[in-house]
């Protein structure tokens, strides 16, 4: 077992859990729409690191990235399979980053329309108006 790699994974997991909770706190508590968008982007990016941690390989002394340096023969293929990390979570992550970018771009376009209607980026105005309508 690789002691340094084990320490690295544990420290990274605790850091990411801390970052996720700070970003979720930011989405709930701060009243400005732009601050909510910033916190949502940070929360999405922090969750993406978990996928890379799932694919890591801890039982090998020197793991390698999932790329072949030159066209291999059969012995090179055996060494490569016994040492490399998992390529599937990394492929899913590229898709997740693109979809996060698409959502953020659309949210920024929508926040300009919110500013048109209410004249401010404060979300408390929206919730007060909603409460007035439902209480009547």
């Amino acid at each position, binding site marked *: 077992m*690789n002691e*340094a*790699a084990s*320490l*690295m994974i544990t*420290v*990274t997991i605790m*850091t990411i859990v*801390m*970052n996720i909770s*700070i*970003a979720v*706190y*930011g989405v709930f508590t*701060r*009243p*400005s*729409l*732009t*601050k909510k*968008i*910033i*916190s949502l*982007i*940070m929360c999405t*990016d*922090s969750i993406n*690191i978990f996928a*890379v*941690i799932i*694919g*890591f390989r801890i039982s090998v002394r020197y*793991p*390698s*990235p999932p*790329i072949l340096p030159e066209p291999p023969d059969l012995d090179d293929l055996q060494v490569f399979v016994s040492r490399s*990390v998992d390529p599937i979570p*990394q492929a899913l*992550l*590229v898709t997740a*980053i*693109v979809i*996060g*970018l698409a959502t*953020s*771009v659309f949210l*920024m376009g929508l*926040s*300009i329309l919110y*500013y048109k209607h209410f004249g*401010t*980026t*404060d979300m408390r105005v929206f919730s007060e108006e909603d409460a007035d309508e439902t209480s009547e």
Partner: protein
Amino acid sequence: MIIPLIVVLVFSFFSIIATYLAVVEKDLLNSAIFMALQGVCYTLIYYVLLAPDVSLAYIPVSSGLLPILLLVVLRKLERFEP
């Protein structure tokens, strides 16, 4: 395995500081800069965890395109948080 371990420890530490300062800050320009700083720290963590493709896809998105879009939108809306 000493240098990857030191890189992960130092940059995880910086990423927690950057995230907390980005959420608490009142001036939204500083908040966008802290978000870009957190993106740089995560890029290095992706590289040490042996994922070069993900790292190359994450650099322009988190440190180039999203802060530029955010700064352009900030100029049209309010700069200081109410």
